[in-house]
């Protein structure tokens, strides 16, 4: 019989169980966990590590004409850092990051802001119709990005937009959703619309996990709902906020589907409006896979750095005390 030490039991059920937990005096070092992990690891290696490795390898190659005169065939040869230099000095690529920043500065705060707001409202005791609202706000998550962009695109187009229809009926002109500068909020709106629900649910379930007694003492002290939300709830759910923030950041850096699908309807969206579109263009339209690989590595690297920075900054705030 094993000795059931409560402390050990508690220790064992934590994800970061200390390494020296013993069971029945025997140290379990077996092949079993590896077997469980085998499918995942196999798929990981084949579909994640190998492609990444190949992409990095490709980024140092280039397609050059080697002999053959005017119509020589292009072949793949080693070109060192040429692709990286070309990517970084390409004004379009750099500009696409600028546009991405504008888009992100609208999309991320609004997505998280609305998600937080709605989650707080759902958690508010006096709100009615929460089940309906919660479900309704979550529905956009089920809509594929391409479809969402299609729908919103038609709602932006002057000839089919119900909004412009109304403004025109009242004597004004069509609303210039797809012209600069409104283009940025319009595109951001599509991802805000799609992202609020999912993030709201994450935050809401975190809120639900906070015991009610914490609020009660605050209420007795006369704190208003607003103050409770600001001073108590939000700090307590900061891990969830960090998580949603991280998702939004990564999602923003990798935005591709929305601008691409909207492009046929919006002349103001160029082929290189966001970094991933530039990468796609290089890979397929310009048939320059090595350059696209280099740009992808740069983008992926940037994403990793940004994520780590975000985690570092918020770690102190969010996890400082409880760890």
């Amino acid at each position, binding site marked *: 019989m094993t000795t059931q030490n409560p402390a050990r039991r508690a220790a064992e059920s934590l994800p970061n169980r200390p390494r020296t937990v013993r069971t029945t005096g025997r140290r379990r070092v077996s092949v079993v966990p590896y077997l469980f992990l085998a499918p995942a690891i196999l798929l990981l290696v084949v579909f994640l590590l190998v492609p990444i490795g190949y992409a990095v390898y490709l980024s140092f190659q280039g397609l050059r004409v080697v002999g053959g005169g005017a119509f020589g065939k292009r072949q793949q040869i080693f070109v060192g850092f040429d692709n990286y230099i070309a990517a970084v000095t390409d004004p379009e690529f750099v500009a696409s990051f600028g546009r991405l920043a504008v888009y992100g500065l609208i999309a991320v705060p609004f997505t998280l802001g609305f998600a937080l707001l709605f989650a707080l409202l759902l958690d508010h005791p006096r709100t009615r119709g929460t089940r309906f609202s919660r479900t309704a706000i979550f529905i956009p998550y089920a809509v594929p990005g391409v479809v969402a962009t299609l729908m919103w695109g038609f709602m932006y*187009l002057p000839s089919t937009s119900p909004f412009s229809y109304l403004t025109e009926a009242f004597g004004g002109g069509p609303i210039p959703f797809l012209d600069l500068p409104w283009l940025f909020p319009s595109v951001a709106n599509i991802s805000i619309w799609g992202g609020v629900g999912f993030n709201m649910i994450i935050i809401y379930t975190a809120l639900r996990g906070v015991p009610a007694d914490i609020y009660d003492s605050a209420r007795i002290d006369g704190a208003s709902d607003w103050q409770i939300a600001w001073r108590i709830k939000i700090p307590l759910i900061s891990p969830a906020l960090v998580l949603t923030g991280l998702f939004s950041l990564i999602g923003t850096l990798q935005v591709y589907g929305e601008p691409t699908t909207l492009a046929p309807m919006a002349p103001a969206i160029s082929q290189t409006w966001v970094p991933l579109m530039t990468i796609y263009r290089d890979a397929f339209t310009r*048939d320059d896979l090595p350059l696209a690989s280099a740009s992808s590595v740069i983008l992926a690297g940037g994403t990793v750095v940004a994520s780590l920075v975000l985690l570092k900054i918020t770690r102190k705030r969010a996890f400082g005390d409880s760890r």
Partner: protein
Amino acid sequence: MLSGRSGGPGMDEPRTAEPSAAWGTAQKGFVDAWNASHPNIQVTHTDAGGGTDSSAKLLTAARAGEAPDVALVEYQTLPSLIVGDVATDITQYVGDETRGAFSDSTWGLTTFNDAIYGVPQDVGPMALIYNQARFAELGITVPTIWAEFATAAEQVRKADPSTYIAAFSPEEFGFFAGMSQQAGAKWWEVDGETWTVGIDGEASRSVAAYWQDLVDRDLVRVEPLLTPEYNTALNAGQILSWPSALWAPGVIYGVAPEQAGKWAMAPLPQWTPGDKAVAYQGGSGVVVTTSAEHPQEATEFAAWINSSQEGADVQLSTGQYPASTLGQQAAVASPPPVLMPQQTDFWKVASQIAADTIPSITWGPNVNVASSAFQDAMGKAALAGTPLADALTETQHVVVDDMTTTGFQVAD
């Protein structure tokens, strides 16, 4: 990017059941006809959806060894495919009969460095398609030179402020190339092993200036073609013409079927009175890919669908203007397109236009780069109101850079 045939690969594979892709329903007709009459060599057809990405997909597929044996590609993408080692040299497989089926200038569309890389399927000699009914209504005469076109544009605006003579899309690469060629430009020239890039030359700049003028004076709508907006205006009779090519009637009919009977076709306006030459816009040919295991049979197939009687029948029924002499002769005898049933001499005029077409532009090895740079630069210029000619300079820049980096010799 539009040319009526937005560059879709039509891919078939003899003797195997591997799927292949084709653009549009025309290719299926070809394949069925071939399979019916050639029981020894069977071809399968798959629809890859076409669209502007299809030549890119073909390149990727070829790189992965996944490309079908035969593909339908736009003429302007052919050099990139050659340089990308996707299109194979079929000179040795092309028999005399096939050679005679097309005029020399038509063969020029698929011949580079004295090697044949594909069999032409259809051609798109440029022409003016216009709303005859509305022209009459507003009292506009059909322009024969571009100066008259500009005057007509003014008249249209005056007669009906909600109407424009045409829409100008700064991103229509094929259209602009054709117009430049009509003005005498040569965007790529090769002499021995050295290329010269002339996108930024005098002739092209004057074309840019011409359209710039129309844009500045609000005489043309500046927007992409065939969007919902454009289609609505077309249906409402607010866009009165489309300078494009002979395949245009089918496209217009597709978005505005109720305009049937109201439109007509006329030769494209010229720069100088009395000139007749026009360029090609669009059009596609059939290539045999380097991964084809039976290039002989593949070439036979390509040649047959593009030059036989059955092939011509299929082409005409789907609105293509055949590249083959046989097809063009058959065209003269066929009824006019659905859009203009009242224009009984349509095909006569068409064949006259075809006869006057300038032998093909030489397309360079990086047309895809040029096209995307052109679209970006022109799009930006249109949005910002900067001169279109500057966009040409930028395009030239990008193209020359790309060619030099890739290792081609480019003259200064």
